């Protein structure tokens, strides 16, 4: 099937416009991170008057960025690993067993994903605070509280994507393992998981990204000691100065890991979506 000249030009125009729309903010983020402060205070410049890496050094002392970074890393990594571990078992059950309540479980879990976050925020805030007062378990303003909260945020989509992956693994493999005497858990760990590695990795990255980017609960459930990047980055605008060059530098640094991870694994996300939603 040949492409007509009109289609070719249409494609070029669409791609050019979309590329400009996507690239301009990214360009500004990258170039402004290399600008001296006066460049971002007096009007806009397309290019740094004197390219410098100073913002990447100053950003650590203007706000306690290292602490926010460590908090975000700890919270997001633990939440991601726990979420995927829980999701693997749940997805295995949904994919390989018929049991009473299977449909109800799937629908309920997925629909919680769609509920407004603000609906859980007020009760969860009160529950965490009152639980702390009553029992001394510090969930409010602690990293533990954030970890528990975040791991449930990525759980529904993780389960759903893993069910899609597990379903695509031939049941013949399970049977072969069972003939060899493997129980269900050994089948899961030695047969299914090795075959689903790309899916598991993609889901882990997704869970990490979810926790890394969450703003609403981070803004209410943290204090100065447990603050994450999502809230901490707003500290660069003080009442005296807005250090836009440092904000851009910090944004760039905290974005690179998740963007690289996502782009490296994008085809597995597409595969997961194809296996699940598109079916």
């Amino acid at each position: 099937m040949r492409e007509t000249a009109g289609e070719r030009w249409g494609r070029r125009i669409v791609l050019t416009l979309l590329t400009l729309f996507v690239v301009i903010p990214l360009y500004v983020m990258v170039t402004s991170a290399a600008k001296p402060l006066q460049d971002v205070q007096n009007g806009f410049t397309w290019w740094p008057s004197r390219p410098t890496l100073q913002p990447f050094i100053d950003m650590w002392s203007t706000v306690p960025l290292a602490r926010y970074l460590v908090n975000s890393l700890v919270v997001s990594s633990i939440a991601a690993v726990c979420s995927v571990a829980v999701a693997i078992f749940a997805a295995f059950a949904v994919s390989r067993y018929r049991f009473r309540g299977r449909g109800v479980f799937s629908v309920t879990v997925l629909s919680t994903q769609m509920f407004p976050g603000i609906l859980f925020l007020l009760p969860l805030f009160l529950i965490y605070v009152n639980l702390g007062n009553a029992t001394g378990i510090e969930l409010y303003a602690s990293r533990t509280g954030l970890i528990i909260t975040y791991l449930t945020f990525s759980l529904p989509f993780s389960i759903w994507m893993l069910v899609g992956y597990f379903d695509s693994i031939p049941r013949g493999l399970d049977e072969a393992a069972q003939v060899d005497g493997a129980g269900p858990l050994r089948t899961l760990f030695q047969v299914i998981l090795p075959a689903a590695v790309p899916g598991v990795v993609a889901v882990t990255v997704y869970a990490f990204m979810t926790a890394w980017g969450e703003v609403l609960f981070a803004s209410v459930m943290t204090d100065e000691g447990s603050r994450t990047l999502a809230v901490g980055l707003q500290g660069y605008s003080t009442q005296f100065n807005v250090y836009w060059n440092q904000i851009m530098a910090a944004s760039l640094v905290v974005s690179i890991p998740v963007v690289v991870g996502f782009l490296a694994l994008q085809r597995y996300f597409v595969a997961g979506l194809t296996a699940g939603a598109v079916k």
Partner: protein
Amino acid sequence: MATSTTAPDADRREPRAGSPARRPTRRPRGPRRSLLPYLLLAPAVVLELAIHVIPMVVGVWMSLLELTQFHIRDWSTAPFIGLENYRATLDLNSAAGKELLHSFWITLAYSLLSVGFAWLLGISAAVVLQRPFRGRAILRALFLTPYALPVYAAVITWSFLLQRDTGLVNHVLVDQLGLMNERPFWLIGDNSFWSLLVVSVWRNWPFAFLCLMAGLQNVPGELYEAAAIDGAGFWRRLRSVTLPMLRPVNLVLLLVLFLWTFNDFNTPFVLFGGSAPEQADLISIHIYRSSFKTWDFGSGSAMSVALLLFLLVVSAAYLLITNRRRDDHA
């Protein structure tokens, strides 16, 4: 997405629990066999209960209490007042009710426009990237980048672009193109709604693109060949092949995007620095601010429950209508 979790052949291998006759004889297993799926699900169920279901029930209960700042420390003392919070916040003649209604219309307009544009950009990109050409993989990765960025990094960058005196937008519009004499404010006043919309489309359209791209991979190439042989041009192929084949994806995608944007908190919260101008006062941020400003969690919960009911009704109506239409076509 809720339609996809069924695995039609899931019981092909595993005999139904409690049918010992069909169980493999080599490894007799006790009753724990039938418990196993529940044990596997237990952690997920417990977490969902603890963080989603119980707080939701508590939220409904809170909406029936006079949970003001006097009772917030020890909320067992808060008096039960029935539907009083709903009456107060949803009363359209009161100031609070008017503000809530205003916020509702703003949010509805924001969601519909944002979903529409995100879908339009997503389908355009998915269609023009359908056939292979040099540089396609790079463009695909580039287009997905806004979605991969942490939301606060993306939105903070946009708030820099939209600054009145130091932002790129005014630099281009006023200094370079000379389209305006005055430097407009983009983050306060009437313009703030449109700024919010552009930022939201920038962030959300890659998700539409990702889903539509996945959907297009399932369209067999022969359909296009056949359509081309019949003399169908680009628009005809789009209308008669691409869009009908994408229908299942679109049904889910549009609903999910609508719910996300309707509940959106992050974009306005970061873009406007913790508050939102009246013209961009989305419902989530409205509830958040009125709850934490006055510490009246009772009426905040009432508004949240009302929001949830509205979204449930909309989702149910949407699913009913789209399902009925599918039956008509069949």
